[in-house]
């Protein structure tokens, strides 16, 4: 078990399915269990891809 901070709310969560998860990492939690690790680099990369898309305002009318 470990403590997971849900943005200001802390709950005891079972971390057994994420061996090696370290303090400071992000995880998806479901029904009291951390089930997936969150890849921060991938998150940022996805946001960069979105930001590179043309804004609707730049569209020709």
């Amino acid at each position, binding site marked *: 078990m470990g*403590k997971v901070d*849900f*943005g*200001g*709310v*802390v*709950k005891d969560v079972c971390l057994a399915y994420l061996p090696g998860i370290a303090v400071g990492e992000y995880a998806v939690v*479901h*029904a009291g269990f951390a089930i997936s690790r969150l890849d921060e680099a991938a998150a940022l990369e996805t946001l960069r891809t979105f930001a590179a898309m043309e804004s609707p305002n730049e569209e020709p009318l």
Partner: protein
Amino acid sequence: MPNPPHFENWTCPLPLRDYPTITLAHGGGGRLSAELIEHLFLPAFADTTLSRLTDAAVLPSPSGRLAFTTDSFVVRPLFFPGGSIGELAVNGTVNDLAMSGAEPMYLTAAFVLEEGFAITELAEVVRRMANAARAASVRIVAGDTKVIERSRGDGCYITTSGIGVVSDGVDVGPDHAQPGDVVILSGTIGDHGMAVMSVREGLEFETTIESDTAPLHDLVREILSVTRDIRCLRDPTRGGLAATLNEIANCSGVGIVIEEKAVPMNAAVRAACEMLGFDPLHVANEGKLVAVVPAKWAHAVLARIKAHPLGVQAAVIGRVSDQHPGLVAARTALGGTRVVSLPLGEQLPRIC
């Protein structure tokens, strides 16, 4: 319990000490009842009228129109971050009076106690009630106590009734909203409901969220000092902001459109709601109000609310419309719209 009762300064006079818990005899009207009243209730509430122990409180008649209300308080657990059933029982009834535009004056308090309830806990509840009443400048002038058998209750239920006076020219009601009016909310939503949830058996989580329980009549006084031309005042308690707005829309036969991102909310409340699958618009508040005001007064009223300690985070959250009467709609941050529905009943955590 995050806020355990403090008994250091509470002296429990004999012979209450002989009875650490409530017994059926404490509600029997005999000697133990009398001792409970004399040693616990009277010193805490310290009211000359109450202390006379007459069958009814006899009070001078105030001039003007009376506002008269009653409410029962049932909460589990009895103590939660930021408050207890004691504060709720006073502030809840004070706020019901305030939302009618009344100055609260007198309260009565009736206790239903469960056999086995710790006297120290009762004393703490009563102490908190007394403090809340003093803070709100209302007098507790009459009371009653009954005891029910063990395991027939949650320790302590409280019913309070209140009387207040409505000044001339003040006429607020949920049926007064008109198209074009502006909807102001006095602060963040969901704090009370999520504070209680954080200590609910089986769902416990650590958080800094505290109940917002507070008496709102002073804030109402400030609002009415800007203009008496206030259409509706409502405290979004059970059912949350969604229930209050729906009530106004229904009673007034108007539509209401709110801007979701304008509704103030603590980050921790948002996180707790997401964790448990609650809609924050459905979560209870105990120290917030919704004011529907004519557009020309909106600026001045908002400024006055924000200047009050209980309204620092106040915001304009929406408008009254002549479209879709009876319905409340929310514009989402993305620019979509949805109907803000009435909650079904008690919110149930949605996990899977």
